[in-house]
Structure formats: C-alpha cells, structure tokens
C-alpha cells in the first residue's frame, strides 16, 4: 500500500496538491482489531477524523474508546488494520512515532512531575534544550503558546501548586509544544468545574479555528452535544455510529447507541419526609495526607430518609470528609452518628452504629482484590452470627450469605470463589453496595458511587440509593457529577477548599450558582 501511495504522490501534479490536502482526512483508521486477554477491545473499528473538526468519541466504560485512541497515540499496536494520518500510511510503533506525525494525547491520568515547574514538565523528554538549560528563554516560549490558546498558566509555577484544571492545561500545552496538529483528549472534563469546562471548550474551538483537529473522548452526553461537530459511538469494541453529524441525533438515541437498549433518564424519586437526625457533624477540621488543612470547621446535619449531596471539584476535602465520618481519618470536632461520637474512634465504632461506606477507591479500599467473592462479601459481617461462631467462621453460612447477595443484586461472577479482581467495575461496585446495604444501614456514606460505570449500571446504583432513602436510611452522597447530585439529593451542599460554602434544597439549586460556589467565586451570605 505504502509503495503504491508514494507512486500516487509522484503522479499528483503540484497544482492539484492543495486541493488534495484539503480533502484528505486528518486521521483514517480502518478495520482496527485489538484483543486483550478475554476481550475484543476493538473489533474491526473504523474511525475518521476530518481536518478542523471536534469529533466526539462516545461510549461506555470498556467500550474501547481509550484503546482506539491509544493505538492512534502509538501506545498499543493493533493486530490488524491500517492507519492513515493526513492521507499517509502510518506505522506507529511508539508514542514518538505518533508525536512526529503530529498526534498528541492528553490522558485521563496526568503524567506530570509534581516538583518540577510547568516549563520543565513541558520540555521533559525533548532534545532541545540540551545539557545546559536556559529556562527563562523557554518560559517565554511557553507563555506565548499559552497566551495564543487562552490556556492561563504560570510557566514558572510548580505542578503541585496548580489546581487540577491548570494541570490539564499544562498537559494540553505539552502536546501543543510538541507540534500536535491532532489532539486527543481522554475524558477531559471529568476533573473540571462547570466554569472550567466552559473555558476548555473555548480553547478547543480556538484550536479548531487554527486548523487543528480534536478527538474528544467522553461518556457524558450533554457535553458531547455541546462541543462536538460529529461523533462516533463505540459499544463493546464495535462501532455503532460512524461519524454522524450531531444535529441528526438526540440524547435518547445516543444513549441507546451507547448502551444497546433504551435508557430511562427519569429516576423514580418519591416525596419523602425526613425523620430523626442520624448524622450530626459539629465543627470538624482535619488534615489531608500531606498534612495540610483539608476540612475547615465543617458542620451539618443529616436526617433519616434524606439524601444530602456534597458538590465540589475533586480534592476540596470530599474524601477526607467521608474518611472522618467512617473513622478512617483523625479529626477535630464531634461527629455524632445516632448520638454516639465516632470522631477519632476506630472504624469499628461507626460500623457498629450502622454506618455503611461506599468508598471512592473500590480496589484500594472497598475490596480485597485477591480474595474470593465470599471473603469480600462477609467483610462487615464476619464477626457476627451466623457467620461467626465463637472463634471460628462458618464458611457454610458465609457462602450462603454471599450467594444470596449475588443473586439479589445480580452480580455477574463465575462462582463464589472467583477472586474479585476478575470482576468488571460495575460488578465490583455491586459487590460493595450489596455488602454495605445488606446490613440495613442507618447511614450510608457514598463517595462517587457511579464513577466510571456504564449508563446501565449507574441507573441501577442510583435506584438502589433512592430505595435506601425510602427505607429511612440517611445518605451522604459525595459526587462530582452535578447531574447525579441534582437527580438524587434532597439537599445539596457545596464544598470548596474544605469549607461548606452553601447549601440549598435540591429544587432551588441551579447549576450556575453551584458552579460558582465550586470554584470559590461565590459563597452564601449568612
């Protein structure tokens, strides 16, 4: 193919070339197949990125979006299929090959050195500057580039001093500095506040006007509708919509293309009267892992049959708040669960008061990955009858318990002795929820309960939480998904830099006010 193409080039008359270039697509991927153990991540996928467009790549988690783009960025090699970049056949053996062809990717997890400056991070791995770095010169270059695209960031600042949004700008600058013409952004809005999302969108539009082409990976329908020109939808490794125009589809169709069935966007939230106070947080302050203040004098109350949503950008103290309530982090102040102070007590104290905890980190905290399903299911009940009998554990009772939950919550696993690290994210989260809810909790602390799950699983988990509220559990819902908070909560409080800066009944909450509060622009006058 390559040889033939070169012949073609030679026969093309110079006059025709500009026209020819205009017509070529920025990227053409044909028949891409890539297999991972047990899954066909990309199953004969076609993908076309036109020059100067924002192209959304939509799909559930595990649909193969990131895989496809990692192939384009030279991180994975497809088993079969061809890639053409700007009309030229491309063999991408490493990210270096991709960069040299003008492809740059901003990954979901940033790859920055926290103790280095912005400029240093941008220059990392480049041949210029050489051994002697004259940094100020490059600071200037970086500043100019940042200015051009409206990416506000201080070149001499150290990465650890920057907010997540600023770090993302650094990542984008990194790819631009390397001359990227084709930019891939993997779920760029996951870490941003509403206003920051707007700024990012502005930048993207600016870049497109400059003639760059952008792939925007997402699973959020609203955003996609807002920013993209065309979109491709993947489901289970296959293309279900190939480069369709956004005007031609509505949200419901998109969801169906992603999930493969109709999705109801309406949750059945019944009116419910809150009862007794279950959780009473009084003047709580705490430090984060780096020893800096993470919570500053926080107070709130949560009643039976009520969902209190905590909105905020990641890293504003949400994780710490969940940890102090569940006894995993020391703090100052009082935290009463059913009138028992659980602050600075071992986690057992909160558990015994009927606290369920759906932690943010499913594999790092919520489960023991190498243990079997049974072992994970009995984590909170192993010391109670009938599973516990004096000093020993009745594994017969444990298996029965686990098998009941597996059935009731429809957990897809080959057997009870399957190690949970073999389960998908959605099933893992169901294991955690099943275990936590099975005890009939009085208080549920749920942190990012639906993050990274596919649309179908999200629906199930949100309904479970609502069900618990209707059963008179108190639910503290910490989430970065504003839509989720608005859908589920009875009240919403906003956390910013460790302080609660505002609180509304869910009906009165509007996105703009919450957004301003999340970025610290606004705080409620008391």
């Amino acid at each position, binding site marked *: *193919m*390559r040889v033939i193409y070169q012949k073609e080039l030679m026969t093309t008359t110079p006059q025709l070339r500009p026209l020819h270039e205009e017509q070529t697509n920025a990227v053409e991927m044909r028949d891409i197949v890539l297999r991972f*153990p*047990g899954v066909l991540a990309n199953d004969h996928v076609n993908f076309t990125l036109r020059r100067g467009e924002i192209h959304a790549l939509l799909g559930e988690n595990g649909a193969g979006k990131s895989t496809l783009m990692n192939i384009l960025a030279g991180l994975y090699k497809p*088993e*079969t299929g*061809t890639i053409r970049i700007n009309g030229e*056949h491309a063999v991408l053996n490493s990210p270096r090959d991709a960069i040299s062809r003008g492809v740059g990717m901003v990954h979901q997890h940033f790859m920055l050195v926290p103790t280095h400056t912005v400029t240093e991070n941008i220059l990392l791995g480049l041949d210029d500057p050489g051994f002697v770095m004259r940094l100020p010169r490059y600071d200037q270059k970086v500043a100019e580039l940042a200015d051009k695209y409206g990416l506000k960031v201080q070149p001499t600042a150290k990465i650890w001093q920057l907010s997540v949004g600023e770090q993302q700008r650094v990542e984008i600058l990194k790819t631009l500095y390397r001359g990227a013409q084709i930019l891939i952004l993997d779920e760029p809005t996951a870490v941003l506040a509403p206003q920051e999302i707007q700024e990012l969108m502005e930048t993207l539009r600016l870049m497109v006007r400059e003639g760059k082409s952008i792939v925007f990976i997402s699973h959020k329908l609203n955003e996609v509708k807002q920013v993209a020109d065309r979109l491709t939808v993947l489901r289970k490794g296959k293309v279900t919509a190939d480069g369709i125009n956004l005007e031609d589809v509505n949200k419901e169709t998109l969801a169906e293309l992603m999930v493969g069935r109709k999705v109801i966007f309406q949750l059945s939230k019944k009116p419910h009267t809150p009862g007794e106070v279950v959780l009473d947080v009084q003047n709580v302050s705490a430090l984060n892992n780096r020893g800096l203040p993470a919570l500053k004098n926080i107070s709130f109350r949560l009643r039976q049959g009520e969902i209190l949503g905590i909105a905020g950008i990641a890293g504003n103290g949400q994780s710490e708040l969940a940890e102090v309530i*569940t006894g*995993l982090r020391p703090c100052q102040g009082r935290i009463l669960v059913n009138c028992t102070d659980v602050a600075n007590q*071992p*986690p*057992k104290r909160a*558990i*015994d008061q009927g606290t369920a*905890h759906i*932690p943010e*980190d499913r594999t*790092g*905290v*919520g*489960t*023991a*990955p*190498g*243990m079997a399903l049974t*072992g994970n299911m*009995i*984590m*909170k009940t*192993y*010391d109670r009858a009938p599973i*516990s009998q004096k*000093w*020993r*554990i009745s*594994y017969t009772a444990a298996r029965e318990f686990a098998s009941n939950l597996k059935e009731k919550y429809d957990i897809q696993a*080959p057997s009870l*002795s*399957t*190690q949970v690290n*073999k389960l998908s994210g959605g099933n893992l989260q169901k294991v955690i929820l099943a275990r936590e809810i099975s005890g009939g909790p009085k208080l549920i602390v749920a942190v990012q309960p639906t993050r990274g799950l596919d649309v179908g699983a999200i629906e199930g988990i949100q309904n479970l939480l609502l069900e618990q509220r209707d059963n008179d559990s108190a639910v503290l819902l910490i989430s970065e998904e504003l839509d989720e908070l608005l859908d589920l909560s009875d009240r919403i409080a906003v956390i910013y830099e460790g302080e609660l800066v505002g609180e509304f009944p869910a009906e009165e909450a509007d996105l703009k006010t919450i957004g301003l509060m999340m970025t610290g622009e606004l705080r409620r006058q008391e």
Partner: protein
Amino acid sequence: MSLPYHLRIQKRTEEVPRWLPLATSVGAIILAFLISALILLLIGGDPIRTFGYFFNAAFGSWGALSDVVVKATPLLLIGLGCGLAFRMRLWNIGAEGQFYIGAFFASLVPLVPLVDMETTPKFVILLMMALLGMLGGGLYGFIPGYLKAKFNVSEIISTLMLNYVAVFFNNYWIYSEFSDAGFQMTPVFAKSAWLPRLADYAQEVRAFSGITLHLGVVFGLIAAFIIWIIMSRSRWGYEINLIGDNPQAARYAGINITRNVILVFMLSGALAGLAGMSEVSGVVHRLQERISTNYGFSGVIVAWLAKLNPFATILVSFLFGALIVAGREIQPSGLYFFIQGTILFLVISSDVLLRYKIELVRTAPEEAK
C-alpha cells in the same frame, strides 16, 4: 519478524487450575536438580553417582531418615512462623534471633535452675521449657511487631538487626554466667530437661537404638495443624488474610491492624522460639554458641517454597532436612547451598506461570499491504 513462532505472554484472567501451583513447584525442584547435575558435569563430577549418594545419605537407613526429621523439625516450626507472618506481608526475617532467644529462655529452666531438676516431674520441666521458649521468641517478635505497628519501622531491617543482637546476647550469658569451665558452651542439661528420644527406649525396642529422633517433631506437626485451623477456619485467620490481601480494606472493615501486626509477629516469634527450645532440649542438650545452622534463614525459604501452606511446609521442611543431611556428606559442601539457592530461585520464578499464561503461537504472516 522471521521466526515462524513467538511467545505470547498474557496475564491470566481466569482462575488458576488447582493443580498448577503444585505442578510448578515440583517442576521447579526437578529443574533445580537438573541444573545442579549440569554444573556437576561441568566440574567433572558424576551427577548420577552424586545424587545416588545424596539419596543414600538422606534416606538410606533408619538412622539417616531420623537425622533428616531431626533437621527438619526446626525448619518446620520456623517455616510455619514465617509463613504466618508472610501471609500478612510482614517480612519477618528475624526467626534466627527469635530462635536464639527462645533457646535461651528455655535453657534458663535447667541452667538457673528455675525448679528443682531432681524432684520436679519431667513433663513439668519440659512444659515450662516449651512455654518459656515460646515466650522468649514471642517477646522478641513483639519488638519489631510493635515498632512496625506503631511507628511503621521497616520490619525487614529491624528483624535482621535483632538477629545479631540475639546471637551476642546469647553469647554474653554463655560466657559470663553459664560457661562450662570457660568454654563457649554451658554445661550439659540435667537429663530431666531432655526431650524424649526414640533411643531412650532402645531397651524395649531394639530397633530404636541410636535413633536420635526426638519429641520436637510432634510439636512441629501439632503446630502445623493449629496454624492450618487458624488460617482456614478461624475469624482471626480471616482477619490475617484480609490484612494480607489489602490492609486498607481491612481497616475499612473495622479490623484493628495494629493489634494484629503485633499478635502475628509474636506468634511467628513464638514458633521460632519453640524451635530453639526443641533444638537445645532435643538435640544439643546445652546452650552453646552455634546452635543454629542458619535455620532462621532456611525457614524463610521453606515458607516460600511451601507457598505459605502449613501442610506443604511439612513436606518442604522434610526435603530441606534431607538436603542438609545429604549435604554434610558431599564435598565441596557448597553444593548443598547451590541446590538450595537454585530451588528457591526457580520456585519463586515459577510464580510467573501462575500469574501469566505463556503460549507459543504461530506468527501470522505479514499483512499484505
């Protein structure tokens, strides 16, 4: 890309077949012997005769077999203790020191003496020695356990260093207080402080004459059974397994990690201490400078080879006992260490086979482009 085949290494996503861990361990041991045979050939030896001699030296007679079990006993107890700690990812490599302190504590009974050695019933003396041995080892395990649990001091460093402390602590008492006429050993214990040996019954059963097998091995077998019960049937075992798999999850489940770290370290040390008692009371019959031939370190290897399984520990310690006994008969003596090292290296490497699937696949012909 000219080779018609290439290796494909994939992470296992499905369950590992039950027989596979055993198969890879046995395979690794066989391979280790094959490699040793090759080395023997290269240095001009005759591997078949050497291994034949090896086999004879270890299993050729009842006496030899008994020697093997005697050597296996401390390895079994220490291997069990280490295995228990390793389950919780506590890298206790201080069994050597815990062994010495256990031996010292047990020796106090006949040396001080703590009770009248003439009139006290033998089983009371032995019981006291066993309990004191376990107490000594347990206390010596408490130190790194406490430091680890409270101040997150690396147990690898603290246990390793405490080994030296224990050896010199022992030496101090041997030389200064209990020395037998200035030699680097204490006087022989009173007979009532000796663990019963089969040879003691030679008068009743002729075949037992000269058989040095002592009661310590029974301690080992009972301990193996108890550890198995703890690990696979008890609440405490569940907690240990959970902490070992994910300490964050264990804390989240309300388990007291500090307490468990200390307890497991103490039990691990107590088992090494019991091994020390069994060695001074069953074999050496006195406290002296070198009572351990690196049992504490071989025990680490035994635990690993047994994949931390208590029953497998019995088998592996027996194999190692055989290697030690046979190794004594072979020159150069380094061969024993060579085989031991090769086995360890291969068994630990063979874990790759459990975590990854390695396939030979035919290379697809290059795509026609």
